[in-house]
């Protein structure tokens, strides 16, 4: 595959790995967090950790939109679909996620709820056009990458007078979550309790928002951040750039993904998003808790296409299982295998916490691709 295989080249990887080995300071450790699930997936899928020296540690961050969705919000929409006989359209990776009652969209579908897997929001619009007498709800979820398509769909629905379509908005924002994580690692007076030396910044998200919104990472939290593509060579290159900054005592925002990301981002997408969405004062992130100004809601002008305004969607507050260590895993305090329930009672088939929910979650990625590295009596194929 042209333009993809070049970024998965094993020989180039060996060269980069050699350079990383040369440049790391053996006297110190490097704790680097990749924010995005896409990076987590690439790291685990390609075994990037095998190419790194033992003193470089990767922390898998919270950038998996399916993982951080509170189970109460999923439960609420399942109940809505049952109650109001709506056609519920969802992206594929949300279908297996358990809601607050342990119920998944696939199970709801098996019970007779009309759940349709869609590849894009435009499929949901087509379904709404084909069923003018039935309400069609699109489960809008994702970071800044999937927000513009949802906005476009709402604009189309308004222009066409497609009154049976609405979006259940669960779009969240990257910078506030990054800030929440850095804040726990950073106190002005004392050194951070948990080591975090730098961040690998989002790929697709940054194509929309640009590299400028991450400046606070350097200016307020004095950490380097390197925006990187989702291919494994991108990740390895970003690690090298971060190690160089750490060694030089620098904290800058660098862009490894210049083939897709500009400082200002995609202005057109930003303006469409601003037209349709506005900030939510607060939103609960599974594993991170309530974060102020960290999510979007549909503007009142588009209330007709906002599921939460058209229907009553009561969200039940939920808490994760007591033994679940997702909050610590997402902050890098614990590795997935250090959680007591990892691979024992918490598995991808029966996830207890957010990190095990989607293949891009920290625990699920370690479970699927890496648990042979940390075998224990409870961990086997």
């Amino acid at each position, binding site marked *: *595959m042209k333009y*993809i295989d070049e970024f*998965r080249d*094993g020989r180039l*990887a*060996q060269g980069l*790995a050699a350079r990383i080995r040369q440049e790391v300071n053996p006297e110190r450790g490097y704790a680097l967090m990749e924010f995005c699930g*896409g990076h987590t997936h690439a790291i*685990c*899928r*390609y*075994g*990037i*950790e*095998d*190419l790194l020296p033992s003193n470089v540690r990767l922390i898998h961050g919270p950038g998996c*939109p*399916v993982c951080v969705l509170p189970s109460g919000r999923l439960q609420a929409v399942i109940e809505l679909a049952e109650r109001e006989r709506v056609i519920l359209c969802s*992206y*594929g*990776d*949300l*279908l*297996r996620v358990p809601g607050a009652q342990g119920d998944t969209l*696939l199970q709801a579908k098996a019970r007779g709820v009309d759940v349709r*897997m*869609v*590849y894009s929001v435009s*499929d949901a619009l087509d379904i709404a056009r084909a069923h003018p007498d039935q309400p069609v709800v699109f489960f809008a*979820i*994702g*970071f800044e*990458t*999937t927000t513009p398509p949802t906005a476009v769909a709402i604009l189309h629905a308004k222009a066409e007078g497609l009154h049976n379509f609405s979006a259940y908005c669960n779009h969240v924002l990257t910078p506030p979550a990054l800030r929440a994580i850095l804040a726990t690692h950073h106190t002005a007076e004392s050194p951070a309790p948990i080591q975090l030396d730098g961040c690998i910044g989002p790929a*697709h998200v940054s194509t929309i928002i640009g590299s400028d919104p991450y400046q606070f990472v350097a200016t307020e939290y004095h950490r380097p951040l390197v925006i990187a593509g989702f291919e*494994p060579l991108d990740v390895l290159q970003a690690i090298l750039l971060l190690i160089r900054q750490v060694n030089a005592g620098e904290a800058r925002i660098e862009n490894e993904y210049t083939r897709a990301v500009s400082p200002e981002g995609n202005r057109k997408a930003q303006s469409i998003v601003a037209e349709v969405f506005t900030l939510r004062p607060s939103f609960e992130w599974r594993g991170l808790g309530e974060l102020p100004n960290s999510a979007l809601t549909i503007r009142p002008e588009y209330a007709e296409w906002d599921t939460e305004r058209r229907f009553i969607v009561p969200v039940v507050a939920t808490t994760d299982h007591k033994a679940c260590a997702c909050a610590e895993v997402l902050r890098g305090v614990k590795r997935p295998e250090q959680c007591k329930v990892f691979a024992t009672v918490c*598995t*991808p*088939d029966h996830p207890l916490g957010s990190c095990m929910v*989607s*293949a*891009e979650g920290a625990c699920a990625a370690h*479970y*699927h*691709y*890496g*648990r*042979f590295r940390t*075998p224990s009596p409870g*961990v*086997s*194929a």
Partner: protein
Amino acid sequence: MIPSRKLFTRKLDFIHGSVELSHGGGGRAMAQLIEEVFLTAFDNEWLRTQDDCAQFNVPAGRLVMATDSHVVSPLFFPGGDIGCLSVHGTINDVAMAGAQPLYLAASFILEEGFPLADLQRIVDSMAQAARQAGVPIVTGDTKVVERGKGDGVFITTTGVGVVPPGVNISASRAQPGDAILLSGSLGDHGMAVMAQRENLSFDAPIVSDTAALHGLVATMVAVAPELHCLRDPTRGGLGSALNEIAQQSGVGMRLHEAAIPVHEPVRALCEFLGLDPLYVANEGKLLAICPAECADPLLAVMRAHSLGQEAAIIGSVVTDAHGFVEMETVFGGRRLVDWLSGEQLPRIC
């Protein structure tokens, strides 16, 4: 052969007609459907007796029996249809014991309203597949369910075969040190079907690999009768098949990603949808596990066969108390090739 007496005044309408409940009712309509559709297409000496069962002699040796139900949407896809798929699938299940498949039974569940033209096309495809494979369909059954209670047509086929003396193939026989061979590229069937689904409009040049593998198996068994395991990686793909064998044999496996053939269009469509070709279905590929010293001669006969031209040695069996299937990636790292959790679903980003 068609009975000489004239039971039916009018022939079935294969242009505009459709399946009716009476076609499964046991009366004259059913007899006509069987005669004009199934007997005509499958015609052989066993069916001609029109008994409720087929009687046949079998050679001495160990008999093998396998059954497989086929539900696929869409029913017709590039490279095949549910008809030939239902013949190949069961022949392959029998062949994976190293057996020579002998006879097939076919059972149809038809939905009221299903076009007779489609049924005939499917049955003709089955007949052709069975003839090409040299494995006759010797008995069968038909039921009709009400409209809305089926998905057009479901086909269950059952096959019997016989294992040559000295051959003992089972998924529980993989041993540390064994070589793992794959007969060709992964994912062609699954992605050919997926590209045809109604809400995807990919114009991908991907053709199902559906094929009967017993001929290939016969050449393999002839050169390496000490073969330990054979498995056709259908639903769940290579990843699931290897995990099943690892568990049944109590061993681990080590694979080399660079050695695993995947055609470029399949790789591209998987990439686009966020799917892993290791878990995509195949209908004309097999996995073989054999003692290391047999690997090269086995690979040579596989490559000499039309269904094994892209065969490759993709890894080896190791001692592993955890039963892990690990893979060295093209990137130079390692990953687990895990059991699949549910069905593979496309990812958001």
